[in-house]
């Protein structure tokens, strides 16, 4: 499908593995992903900020991509993160995972491993106890092994 095009783009980029994380605010690149985010936020505005989305900028294999999402919050009973959700642009489905937290979490940090079908944009959205929503988007380049079974 898009794989050949992605690979050509990859070669043109002249990749070097490094710590450069491409970070962009959420933009209307994919209508479906925007709809999924809007649905999660129940129509409330989703602002860039407070969320740190750690993901390797260059993924060696889309089958197992480690991610860590941290949200800047005191995590008190009065002010805490109630949810963290991850959305994608180009997998068969937009949803990746939705975490539910509370003040007992102590720290609004979650780590897991996800699957990426191809190079794409991802967005992590945090829901706070005051009803506001915050997000960060990342662009990820996905390569895969040359010799498949």
């Amino acid at each position, binding site marked *: 499908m898009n794989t050949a095009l992605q690979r050509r783009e990859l070669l043109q980029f002249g990749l070097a593995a490094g710590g450069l994380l491409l970070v962009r605010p959420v933009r209307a690149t994919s209508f479906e992903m925007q709809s999924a985010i809007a649905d999660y936020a129940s129509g409330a505005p989703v602002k860039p900020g407070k969320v740190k989305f750690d993901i390797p900028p260059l993924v060696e294999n889309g*089958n*197992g*991509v*480690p991610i860590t999402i941290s949200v800047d919050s005191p995590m008190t009973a009065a002010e805490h993160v109630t949810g963290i959700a*991850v959305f*994608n642009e180009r*997998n*068969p*489905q937009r*949803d*990746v*995972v*939705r*975490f*539910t*937290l*509370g003040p*007992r*979490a*102590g*720290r609004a*940090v*979650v*780590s*897991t*491993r*996800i*699957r*990426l079908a191809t190079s794409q944009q991802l967005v992590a959205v945090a829901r706070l106890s005051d009803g506001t929503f915050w997000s960060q988007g990342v662009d990820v380049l996905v390569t895969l092994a040359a010799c498949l079974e």
Partner: protein
Amino acid sequence: MARTLITAPATAKRGEVIELRTLIAHPMETGFRPGADGLLLPRNLITRFSCRYNDELVFSADLHAAMAANPYIAFFTTATESGTLSFRWEGDHGFSQTETVAISVS
């Protein structure tokens, strides 16, 4: 019974924020993948993970096909009292598994 690996501290101080790391063996078959015969392999996913601290829900996750096989989930909770941490995975085809770990809080 799927194999699981839970990394949690056995002891903690009251109020300490502790990290809990969980791993479970599961193919997380998406339902989008064709098998050798070209037919789609049936979906088989873990769809929900939850953690209870002395029966009180402290963390949960709703998982979709984009979660990797052999799901790894790491999160934090506050050590409030001694007792039992229970971890539960639920999913397709009636899959359900609970593992418990004791914690001593001083």
